[in-house]
């Protein structure tokens, strides 16, 4: 499993949802959100350790899969992951257009005529 870098000043806990596999973040109410802006920001120390333990318990309780802490900086719109990998996860999709949106981008057309 990926281990967060040690030098990160603050962290959030991320995982994947059991049912749909989508990326989730631990929020302030011990729930899970798809929106990193709502993620609970954690300082190193007991608070982080408790959150990691809670995440593991949620993994064991079959709520989420493989939770782990990631390094973030906190900007105007909330936490922003430091690593590109985690930025891509937090953006809820690839950095490129896909499917019909990509088709539309490439052709200017709305949909392929069938």
């Amino acid at each position, binding site marked *: 499993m990926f281990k967060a870098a040690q030098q990160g000043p603050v962290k959030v806990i991320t995982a*994947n949802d*059991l*049912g*749909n*596999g*989508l*990326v989730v973040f631990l929020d302030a109410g011990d729930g899970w959100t798809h929106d990193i802006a709502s993620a609970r920001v954690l300082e190193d120390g007991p608070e982080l350790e408790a959150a990691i333990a809670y995440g593991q318990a949620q*993994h*064991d*309780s*079959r709520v989420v*899969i*493989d939770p782990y802490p990631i390094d973030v900086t906190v900007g105007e719109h909330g936490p922003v992951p*430091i*690593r*590109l*990998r985690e930025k*891509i*996860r937090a953006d*809820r*999709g*690839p*950095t*490129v257009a*896909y*499917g*019909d949106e*990509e*088709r539309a981008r*490439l*052709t200017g*057309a709305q*949909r*392929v*005529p*069938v």
Partner: protein
Amino acid sequence: MYRYDEFDREFVNERVAQFRGQVARRLSGELTEEQFKPLRLMNGVYLQLHAYMLRVAIPYGTLSPAQLRMLAFIARTYDRGYGHFTTRQNLQFHWPALKDIPDILEHLAAVEMHAIQTSGNCIRNVTADHYAGAAADEIIDPRPYAEILRQWSSLHPEFIFLPRKFKIAVTGAERDRAATQVHDIGLHAKRDADGNLGFAVYVGGGLGRTPMVGHRIRDFLPERDLLSYVEAILRVYNLFGRRDNKYKARIKILVHETGADEIRRQVEADWERIRDGALALPEDEIRRIQDYFAQPHLPARPAGSIVLDRARAADHALDSWAARNTVPHRASGHVLATVSLKPIGGTPGDMTADQMEVVADFAERFSHGEARVSHEQNLILPHVALDDLPAVHAALAAAGLATPNAGLVTDIIACPGLDYCALANARSIPVAQRISERFADHARQKDVGDLKIKISGCINACGHHHVGHIGILGVEKKGEEFYQLTLGGSGDETASLGEIIGPGFSSEAVVDAVETVVETYLNARRGPEEDFLAAYRRLGQAPFKEALYGAA
């Protein structure tokens, strides 16, 4: 095309039912992820960066219109309206919810498809030349042999827990379009001096972190001995392949550490023991399977087409496409047509549900109900009459599927990379898109000629970068994406591994670096007839190194 018999059907349906129960137990909390993971992997279900991913096998790359339509239906109903064709004749859905996957598998089973053994340490989907059964240079259609191997390897009790995954490719033509020499086992069909059919057998090829070209351990394996010999290879590997280190567990490491001669000796010793046993292929069974793959009846047609010639003269786009995306068929008046999944600036290998339906319709109307997927992430219509090419081209063009770039610099192979893959270190798709845009001009592409660029987002090499004429490997360096270039790789019958040319390039610089390599080739080639690979093999690294990094 092969049709499931009652055993195939029952086997796949039972497997779907079994997995449905496993998913239900996972969702209800009965199974932990640790318990469930090996079960889901056995059914092609991965957990990627953003979501679950389902990898569906397309055995030997052959697809029917009904199968394409079902893939489109699944993409639209359970995913996000598209699928991604991989470098191993699979299709990946990148967004299925776990609860839906049993239903998806049930739909797939209805069109004789499945996701069994598309993951895990077992014998994976057996791949074949995408021009099989139609190519003018074919000795024998490799698909019946791939099908025999598929039947033998599906849930083979001895080979379900191998030291590591195991990939077999089969080709039946002079030209190796199936990259057989970089597979765990590569089988290249040939005839001996008496006209008997057999195979050259390569073992221990592979890409990944330790790329190797396979060793030819047998020049001519008679057709009847195919299964017994392959089983002997698997048995030697299963017994002696390393299980202590995942990175040294592939058969290529065993062959490398043991020596090809000793591996041959061990294989042949086991084979002598079993070759006349139950695995000797009965002639009538081979012919029975071959009948499923019989070439459709193609009416006799003249070698040329006035209809096509006139249309080409009037339509430049058609002319470019016909020149580049069609190759001779063994039947007069027909061609194989490549449906490019590499639009300029697009994601290599991606196809929308609507596009799948367009190709399904045209495979039905103009290609005798057959389509193929290539390991180069394109589709093929294998039996198109020359007279029909204008209509096929027009429909493909309307669907964004007629980029005239087969085998050219923009026909790039790329793995999903860090945009989707949990293993990746760097993105592949945006690099492919930017190179494609840089070389968008068709006249320039034609001038550059045959050139295979292959991009992987990590050392696992799903993008086959080691065998790209220009290979690009994405790495992470101090938190940034960097791209290492390898030159001179090839996956064909003259297989070779690319050589690292020097220090890597930043994401911003890598497209310029590729352009520098291409310009260096153009300046140094003897003429347009000397393609990139030939020129590199003549010139070596020096001029490219100097152009990229300056004089030493």
